[in-house]
């Protein structure tokens, strides 16, 4: 049940993030939207590891079913990758702001060409 709620929440985050990415003109807003969407994808993966009344998948942490460790490991990797792309894209935004004095995407697009 909780897992299902979490995946619905993840879909909602994806919608929110990608919608923001598409409907805002400012680069910072776009990157924020992108980051929210990648958070949604990460939440989606973690939710798949869910088991009812599960314990952490660590040996010696009591009886009962454990959560699936594989999605957790995947998410650890995915989060670091998202951090890396976000850092690099922010650096590029700093660069463009310094050179073109704008973060407005249509304006940048007119200046730099397609």
């Amino acid at each position: 049940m909780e897992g299902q709620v979490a995946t619905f929440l993840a879909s909602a985050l994806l919608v929110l993030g990608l919608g923001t990415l598409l409907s805002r003109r400012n680069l910072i807003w776009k990157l924020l939207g992108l980051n929210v969407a990648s958070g949604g994808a990460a939440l989606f993966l973690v939710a798949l590891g869910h088991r009812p009344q599960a314990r952490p998948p660590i040996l010696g942490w009591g009886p009962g079913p454990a959560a699936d460790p594989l999605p957790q490991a995947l998410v650890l990797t995915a989060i670091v990758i998202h951090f890396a792309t976000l850092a690099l894209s922010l650096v590029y935004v700093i660069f463009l702001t310094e050179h073109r004095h704008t973060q407005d995407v249509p304006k940048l697009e007119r200046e730099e060409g397609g």
Partner: protein
Amino acid sequence: MSYALAGVMGYFLAGAGGLLWPRAQRWLSALALLGGLGALLAWAPHFPPTPVGGGSWGITLAGDQLALGFWALTLLFHGMALGEEWRRSGPFLALMTLLLGTCLALPLSQDLFNLFVCLELTSLLSFLLVGYESKPAAIWASLKYLILTTVGMILYLVGVGLVYGELGTLSLAELRGGTWQWNGSLAVGVGLLAAGAATKGGVFLFAFWLPPAHGRAPHTISALLSGLVVKMGLITLVRLAAVFPLSGVLVGLGVVTGVGGLIYALWERDLKLFLAYHTMSQLGYMLLGFGAGALLGGTAYALAHGLFKALLFVAAGKAIAAGGSRRIDELSGRLSLSTSLALGLGTAAIVGLPPLAGFAAKGILGGSLPGWGKWTLFGLGVGTAASFAKLIPLLVPGPPGRAWRGEWPLALGLLAAGGWGLSHVPSLLSPVAWGQALGVVALGGGFYLGLRRFHPPLPRWTLDRACLAILMGGLAISLGLLFA
């Protein structure tokens, strides 16, 4: 398989060492090339899939003809890039070594998540190298690339989640051997995976980051990206299609990509953007081949395209540097003999003139396609010849210039691959095939004369439109798989 992995690790180690000791990076890079060659010779005969790491969580790696071909291409490109960029300052060569290492790692992968991580690593390195010279136009192209591929990779990640949730494994090799049920969730997941891979793989409607990124990058990087890196997305699509019922999707995307890229290339006046649109169009050929189940034909075309497109980009970079302009009509008469020769050789190969690799690959690909596929190839070939006809004025040599460096491995590769094709596929030696190839080129030239006066308004693909296209494309593939 551990030989291959050792080769990949050697590349990564050489890259990291190059970042640590910038003075040693060119020698470390050359050493990695030698190690890669050794690894290729050592693992070439061993094809069976091997789990690395073992257990149910491990990553499956496997070599096949596709991986073998891309290894050879990557090593050849490494030679080319070292020849062109030996004296470049900064972390350029170290980053390039890492990029080439990733291109060695990805074709071996048979694991959905490992493919994701490899794709992200190629993306990140490409962003860095496209924006390497810190020109605002290149940085903007790079940022556009970054945002669009991240959207694609988010879709891919959700697809990984859906497939893992449904089937409980990430290993494509395991899925190919096992039995499982195709259902709705899986259709959506596979659709998203395909959309993500298509975004990385330069498919029309998904990848409008490609023309600016490939057009604005330093010219060696354009060659690497167009010849090699963009095909990493394609390999991912091929790996997916080997397990999931994606052949119809690949054929559809192939036709759209071939025609769409061609239409933009026909009227493009910027030399490097023109070549970049052609990369898209040529990816359509390969998708068509892979979709129709012609693994050998698709691979042959991918390798041949890598060779001639890299040669064209290297020559274009030199032409632009010598002519001081990016516009095709302003460059005529300003190219040196060696640059004209390289450009002419690349053009002859891309339009499919015998006896070069383009002709051989097109013959192998056409031979394994059904009738409609042959006609599509014919149409695309005429269009390609028509769009390349505008390069003819550039073939008149002007002042003398620098001799060939990185062009050598590519040109020799073109000739050798063409010769190999001609000696192994007897139908290519018939006069009919040669006549057909010449006929296509002549027809294309005629079309060029007719099309020259006509300038249709083509829609511009802004960031927002390109993003929307990725989402709509993902939706379309998912729904198509769901209701097929």
